[in-house]
Structure formats: structure tokens, C-alpha cells
């Protein structure tokens, strides 16, 4: 079943996004939920559906509820939700998976207003990237003893190979980081707002996993974002919607186009996952957005800038805003498509592709400013 505009995101909210916080992940999540409800013109009593993605993905995560993870059961208590008729916490899922799951619950009639919550937390104490587990279980036994799962080593190796094959250099990775910093200027939530980075300073950054240096990695943060979804006929009068035109999961990326009836040429802006700078190349190349050469050249030539052919990560991405693990990308797509991006509003933002996740585990959502129905105008 496809959505094609039957389902909308009705509102979005964010907590503050900071590198360290004395407040808990629960407090930040509740801040984001309150803002999302206000934005959508709804109250707590309207919410009868929930979708989350609680997993803390960094190697040093302690995976403790209320510390660096938060699930539906805790949100329900903290926010006084009652009467949920649908809930799901997606194990190792992304914000894009959350939007797809919410849309499917609404299409199935399981609920009327779905709340989506994603929160991240950078704890004092434990090292963010270093695991203290004494045993590497399962397939991890073939990667963890070598550090292959540390600090994005496997993505760094993939970037190294990409650079060897396409001729990209660290100056070209810098172009991705510089783009993120330029766009973050207009995002008051961004941890790097107003902090430009020269090429010299970029190259002087500590090596992390070559070719990635310090500034190729997104900043661990404490922060949360939340959204509300509903069917088109249930949109509150005051809400500015972004319609969910289609989606796809990690085993069939192309379905984001077939399910929405849209093609690459219809996409007017993109929010692509950039946990490491080199990741933005994956789907620019993979979906064929760059007709004149490899993605690194597309970005270096300015085509991903606000006034370029395909504005990319117009909120600064994770590299500019901080590591919200993809819900920042979904939030920006909503704000742009709904015409609520304020100082960073694009002139043309009718159709935005959102991608979360690594090259081999990505999911996708297409948001549109108007409902799109198969075979003509909405009834």
C-alpha cells in the first residue's frame, strides 16, 4: 500500500541540542513532544499512536533506559499518555523508518494521531566511541577485536576505496563539511552555528579513522525531536502539513520512487545522512542525482548549496547540527516542504527526499507539499 498524500506530518518539535546536558534524555524528549503538539495544533489527549527508535548506536553506549535510550514505556509515564491503540519501538531503526511505520499504522486505521520520538544522549563518563564489553558476541567477534566497528572504521575504509576509485581527495571531503557549516549558520539549533571552518583548520583536525578526521565526524549531542502524523482528513485546521508521498526500507531503496510515483528529476531538495562526511556521496551517486560526474565533484562545484541544483542538508546536516541520528534530516524535510523553515526556507522545496542510515542499511521517505494521488487530483 502506498501513501501518496493520504498521510501527513502535521507538526514537528525539537528540544535544545547541546554537547552535554545536566537534564535527562527524558526531559529533552518531553520538551520535543510538547513543541511538536503545539506545532501541530493538538493536545496530549489526541495522541493514540506512538513510534520510536530508541537504540543508542555509538560503541560506548550503555544502553540504559532514561540515560542514553528512551522507549515508549518511559514516554507514556513521563508524558501521561493513555489509550494508545498502536505503539512500536523500532529496534535499530531510523527516523525514516519511524515515519514509514507511522504511515502504515494510519493507513491500517490502527490509530488517528501518531507521535514519533527520537532522542540521543552523550553521557558524561563513558567514552563515546570505545566499548568496554569484554566479549564480542555474534558476528562482532570478526570485527570488534580489530576496531573495525569503532569510530566508523568501516565507513572510513569505504571512503578510502571511493577516493581511490574516483579521484576524490580530502579537500573534497572538506567541501562536504564546509557546506554543512554554511547551512548551519541559519539553524539556531545547530551546535556548529556560526562556526566556519577553514581548509587549514579542517586538515589540522585530529585523525580519527583515515581519511576521516575530527571534522568529518558529526558531534555527539544531547537532544530530541518529535513529530505528529495523521491522515489528511484528520489534519488540524492550524497545521501546516508535509505529505508522505512514499517510503522505502533498506532492502529496496528504489521503492521510495516507485511508491511515490516520483523520479529523481522531481526531487527539489535532499536531506541525506551525514554521520561521516563521505556518506553523503552514497545516494547522490546511487540514485543518479549527479549527471555530470561523481558526487564529490557535484558538491565541490556548488550544486548542493542553497542556490544550487539540488540543495542538500539545508539545516547543516548532522555535521553542522549535531548527531541526532537522522531525525534532524526528517525535521528539516518537514520544515522545508511545509514552508516553515524560516530564514533558511528554500524558494523551491515542493519535494524533499530524506535518507537515514549507512549505505547498506538506509531507509527513505519522500515528503511533498501537496497530496499526490495515483491517477489525478485528490478527491
Amino acid at each position, binding site marked *: 500500500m502506498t501513501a501518496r498524500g493520504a498521510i501527513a506530518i502535521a507538526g514537528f518539535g525539537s528540544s535544545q541540542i547541546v554537547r552535554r546536558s545536566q537534564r535527562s534524555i527524558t526531559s529533552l524528549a518531553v520538551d520535543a513532544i510538547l513543541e511538536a503538539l503545539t506545532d501541530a495544533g493538538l493536545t496530549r489527549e489526541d495522541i493514540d499512536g506512538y513510534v520510536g527508535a530508541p537504540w543508542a548506536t555509538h560503541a560506548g553506549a550503555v544502553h540504559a533506559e532514561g540515560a542514553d535510550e528512551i522507549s515508549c514505556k518511559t514516554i507514556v509515564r513521563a508524558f501521561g499518555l493513555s489509550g494508545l491503540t498502536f505503539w512500536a519501538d523500532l529496534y535499530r531503526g531510523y527516523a525514516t523508518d519511524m515515519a514509514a511505520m507511522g504511515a502504515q499504522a494510519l493507513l491500517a486505521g490502527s490509530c488517528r494521531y501518531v507521535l514519533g520520538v527520537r532522542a540521543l544522549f552523550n553521557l558524561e563518563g563513558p567514552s563515546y566511541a570505545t566499548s568496554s564489553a569484554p566479549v564480542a558476541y555474534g558476528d562482532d567477534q*570478526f570485527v*570488534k*577485536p580489530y576496531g573495525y566497528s*569503532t569510530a566508523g572504521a568501516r565507513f572510513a*575504509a*569505504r571512503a*578510502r576505496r571511493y577516493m581511490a576509485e574516483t579521484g576524490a581527495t580530502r579537500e573534497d571531503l572538506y567541501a562536504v563539511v564546509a557546506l554543512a557549516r554554511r547551512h548551519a549558520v541559519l539553524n539556531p539549533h545547530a551546535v556548529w552555528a556560526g562556526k566556519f571552518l577553514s581548509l587549514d583548520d579542517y586538515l589540522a583536525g585530529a585523525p580519527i579513522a*583515515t581519511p576521516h578526521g575530527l571534522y568529518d565526524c558529526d558531534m555527539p549531542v544531547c537532544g530530541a525531536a518529535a513529530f505528529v502524523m495523521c491522515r489528511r482528513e484528520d489534519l488540524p485546521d492550524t497545521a501546516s502539513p508535509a505529505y508522505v508521498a512514499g517510503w522505502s526500507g533498506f532492502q529496496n531503496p528504489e521503492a521510495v520512487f516507485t511508491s511515490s510515483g516520483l523520479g529523481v528529476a522531481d526531487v527539489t531538495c535532499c536531506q541525506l545522512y551525514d554521520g561521516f562526511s563521505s556518506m553523503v556521496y552514497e545516494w547522490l551517486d546511487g540514485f543518479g542525482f549527479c549527471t555530470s560526474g561523481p558526487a564529490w565533484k557535484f558538491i565541490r562545484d556548488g550544486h548542493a548549496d542553497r542556490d544550487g541544483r539540488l540543495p542538500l542538508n539545508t539545516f547543516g546536516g548532522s555535521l553542522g547540527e549535531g548527531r541526532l541520528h537522522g531525525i534532524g534530516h526528517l525535521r528539516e524535510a518537514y520544515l522545508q516542504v511545509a514552508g516553515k523553515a524560516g530564514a533558511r526556507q528554500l524558494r523551491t522545496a515542493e519535494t524533499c527526499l530524506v535518507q537515514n542510515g549507512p549505505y547498506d542499511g538506509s531507509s527513505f521517505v519522500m515528503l511533498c507539499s501537496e497530496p499526490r494521488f495515483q491517477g489525478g487530483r485528490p478527491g
Partner: protein
Amino acid sequence: MAASARPEPGVTAETAPFWDGTARGVLCLPHCGLCGTTFFPPAARCPHCLSSRVAWKDCSGRGYLRSWTELHVAPYSGSPKPVLVAEIEPGESRSLALAMLMEANGTESLVPGAPIVIGFAADANGWTYPVARLLPETSGTSDASLAGERAGHDR
């Protein structure tokens, strides 16, 4: 109490032959006794045809460098830094890539596709792990003849 904080393999029935292999200095890989597919990581059934006729074979220890990264963040407390982490395609099945540490004189001479030989090194906890090294006679040379062979295995 382990002598080092390096995480130790959580060995199961499915993975034990691999670690038994490294202990005797041999790269051992599982393959399917029915359809012949070599696969990794180890599993109770062939991921291609789901046969449970999993067999193990001693490999040559030759392979090819797919890619690498110099990791400057300690993956565990007390780890040496930096470490060179490589993706190695076993000569027997180049569609696979195994992560392992690599020993090299710097990274300048490394190129994707470079032939390597797999050695073995025991650590303070008594585990023996594979270690990749460039084949001396081909060190630093690009292997153009492999380009065609590699093309079918990319991504």
C-alpha cells in the same frame, strides 16, 4: 581476568572452526557442501541455499586488499594507537571481505587490489588473529590485471 581489555571472541559451535584455524596458523573459511558457496561470517546454514551441509576448508592465506583505514581512536581501553585496519578479500572468494589488522610500512604504498598474505599473531589473552601483510615482491604496485576480475565484486 583477561590480560588485555581487547574484546575476546564469543565463540559458538558455528564459529569455533575459524578460531581453531587461526590457532594453528591457517585461515579457515566455511563453504556449502551442497552448492559450493564460500561464505562469511560463519553460519549453521549456507546463506545462499540454506543447506546445513557446512564444511570448512583451509585457505591459501593469499588475498587482496580491498581497502583500509588507520584508526586513531582506541577501540578498547589500552589499545595501541593508531592501528591499521584492513578489509581483505580471500583469494578463494573475492566477493567476501574479512576485517583484520594489517602490518605495513606506512599507508603510502597501499592501493586497493594489492596482493597480500595473511599471517597470524597471538595476543596477551591467548587468542590468535589473522594479520595482513603486503606480498613483498608486489609491494606498492597497482595490480591492473585484477581490475576486470574485481569489477564484478564491487559493492
